[in-house]
């Protein structure tokens, strides 16, 4: 057991810090051109797709280096590593494993150069987030699939150029996890219609996407027909330590501490209130545990263990932290809580992130069933 980073890792951390010092302006000085310039610089460093193999245009970084990179970026309030979150998280890893040469040639360069924008089509109405239940039907017709049905909660579908689309190609497959295929589909394909879903804070991120006789060539299929489950799961398995759950929380904790330092409670400084202090200390402790959980999982993954349900622990912790942290902040704000501001916004917005990664109850089911071996309900 050794929490010291190697000299190489420490050197890499120093490099990242120096890069940030040289290139990242504070948030208030970032203009509209900033992100593009920033991503160009990241691209030069090969820090977009940093952990992907070099032969696919990635940076060939280790998982630890990737963690260091992400941690430093998060501390510095840098934007995401790349503009196409869905593409980098889902499409790239799946392409590397399952893509044909043509597919790689078509999509990889744009992914790494921040010129792509992908959305992912998983959830469907009345089905929820269980991929095994997906119903969107694709019927083979010559060299095309013909698709009818709809996807929902499709983030950024209204701005994406492509959709990483899961469809059911064989409804009679022996298991409901077979018979699923993945199609790399341009969003401007005729028959695709996007209906916006405005969220609780009035923003448009989600969409419902309708497919009416949409024709997609067979050559757009990623992986073998009926093997879409493996394609999706393989992408999921890319980095599953849950370490990324904690970095955002650390940033959030610092903001909460700042708020507490300047707040009053019962007419006295909030930091004199034993309950406020202990609540924040509890958050700090849980977030420290999340970070260490992530590092333990990362170690296991580096040593070759197949990641399974480990991320559920940190996802659950995050879901259990965000709402109480926001409740405490709103309490510190007093009547200000009825106004507008970052904390007020978060107190609604957190519900999206808490539900988004699979609700706390889903994480609890996963842990109880897959780790503890309890029966399904």
């Amino acid at each position, binding site marked *: 057991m050794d929490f010291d980073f190697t000299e190489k890792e420490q050197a890499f951390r120093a490099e990242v810090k120096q890069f940030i010092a040289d290139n990242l302006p504070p948030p208030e000085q970032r203009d509209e051109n900033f992100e593009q310039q920033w991503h160009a610089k990241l691209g030069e460093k090969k820090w977009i797709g940093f952990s992907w193999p070099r032969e696919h245009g990635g940076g060939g970084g280790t998982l630890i280096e990737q963690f260091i990179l992400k941690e430093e970026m998060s501390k510095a309030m840098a934007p995401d590593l790349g503009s196409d979150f869905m593409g980098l998280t889902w499409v790239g890893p799946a392409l590397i494993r399952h893509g044909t040469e043509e597919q790689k040639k078509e999509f990889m360069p744009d992914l790494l150069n921040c010129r792509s924008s992908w959305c992912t089509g998983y959830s469907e109405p009345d089905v929820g987030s269980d991929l095994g239940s997906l119903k969107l039907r694709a019927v083979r017709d010559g060299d095309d699939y013909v698709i009818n049905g709809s996807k929902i909660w499709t983030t950024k579908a209204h701005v994406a150029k492509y959709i990483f689309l899961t469809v059911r190609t064989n409804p009679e497959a022996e298991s409901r996890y077979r018979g699923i295929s993945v199609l790399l589909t341009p969003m401007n394909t005729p028959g695709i219609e996007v209906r916006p879903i405005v969220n609780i804070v009035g923003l448009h991120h989600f969409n419902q996407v309708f497919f009416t006789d949409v024709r997609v060539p067979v050559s757009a299929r990623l992986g073998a027909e009926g093997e879409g489950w493996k394609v999706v799961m393989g992408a999921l398995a890319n980095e599953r330590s849950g370490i990324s759950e904690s970095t955002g929380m650390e940033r959030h904790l610092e903001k909460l501490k700042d708020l507490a330092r300047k707040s009053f409670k019962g007419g006295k400084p909030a930091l004199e209130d034993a309950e406020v202090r202990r609540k924040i200390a509890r958050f700090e402790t849980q977030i420290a545990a999340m970070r260490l959980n992530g590092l333990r999982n990362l170690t296991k993954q580096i040593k070759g263990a197949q990641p399974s349900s480990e991320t559920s622990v940190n996802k659950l912790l995050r879901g259990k932290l965000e709402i109480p942290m926001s409740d405490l902040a709103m309490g510190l704000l007093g009547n200000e809580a009825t106004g*507008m501001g970052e904390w007020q916004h978060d107190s609604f917005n957190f*519900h999206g992130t808490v*539900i988004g990664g699979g609700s706390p109850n889903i994480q609890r089911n996963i842990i109880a069933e897959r780790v503890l071996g309890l029966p399904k309900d």
Partner: protein
Amino acid sequence: MDFGFSEDQEMLRDQVRKFLDDQCPLPQVRTIAAGPQGYSPDLWKQLSELGWLGLTLPEEYGGVGLDWVDLVIILEETGRTLFPSPLVSTTLAATAINAYGTAAQRQQWLPGLASGSHIGTLALLDEIDFLSPEAIRMTATSSGDSYRLSGQKRFVQDASAADVFIVAFRSGAADSDIGLAIVPAQQSGVSVEDTPGWDRTKRTGVLTLEDVEISPDALLGGTMLGAHAVETLVDRGALAVAAEAIGVCEGILSLTSQYALDRKQFGSPIGRYQGVKHPLAEMYVDIECMKSLVYYAAWTLQGEPDEAPAAIAKAKAYASESVCSAGVNGVQLHGAIGYTDEYDMQLFIKRSKWSRATYGDEDFHYDRVATFGGL
């Protein structure tokens, strides 16, 4: 001892419920909330005709002469339907004038407030957002028989709609130096700005006074009433918000239970799972407790006034805590749809945050419960 509602009270509830369900269902609430005024003058007029505005005022001033137990019935229902109106603010302003005003002040203001031709509200809180009389910092300067007031009052409910403000101020450092002024909105030096907030069914604003004259007949009760008057009004406000919070929780429970019955997963309703049904059962328990605490607190106002502050502190503490968790659980149990603008759950969670904070959150009131309880 009879801890139940009378037949008249049950009839009142039926009447209120029918009116709100017919005249202001949630689509209508959305329309009103999206508008600049935040209430419907047309519905406001109807409330007056139904007697809700002067419900607890004496009949001689156009009121109905009922008590706060009856008012609680109305507020539970306005909470359940998120009815947007300055009803609570106007009632609180009228309560202040009725309780502390001179005969002339009551005669001048109460008939208009009961008939709805005037909208009133309390303006108690200064920059320091602490609901204790000691936090009232707005200090009057003396000028002959009159006082002159300058400064800002924040978190004034329905500020933009109000015609008349009951403004807390002080003339000196002592608790007895606290007074309340009746300040008409059109008086010279008075201005109001709306404060943006997420819950558009409840409007809040900032009242700015620039060298406003408080003549002797604008000084409520004609004298400096002292800290106790402010505490009493804060208590009334807390009780009103707690009563509405019952309804808010009932609305959330009904919306979410129905969703749990309708929404199927793997072929059966999600309400089958203990992970869903247990939080809903807890919500029901919370509602029962809120009702018990709020009804009792409302009764103490007439029945056992010395008990009222402790009873109200318990009611608002429990209500703040419960409405907050009902909002959170309501959204969580809905999943993604609860996080959308088009589904009504979002209206309720927004109100839940407002209800928790307004007139003191759970910590503020639990601190009082501890002190009242001899700790």
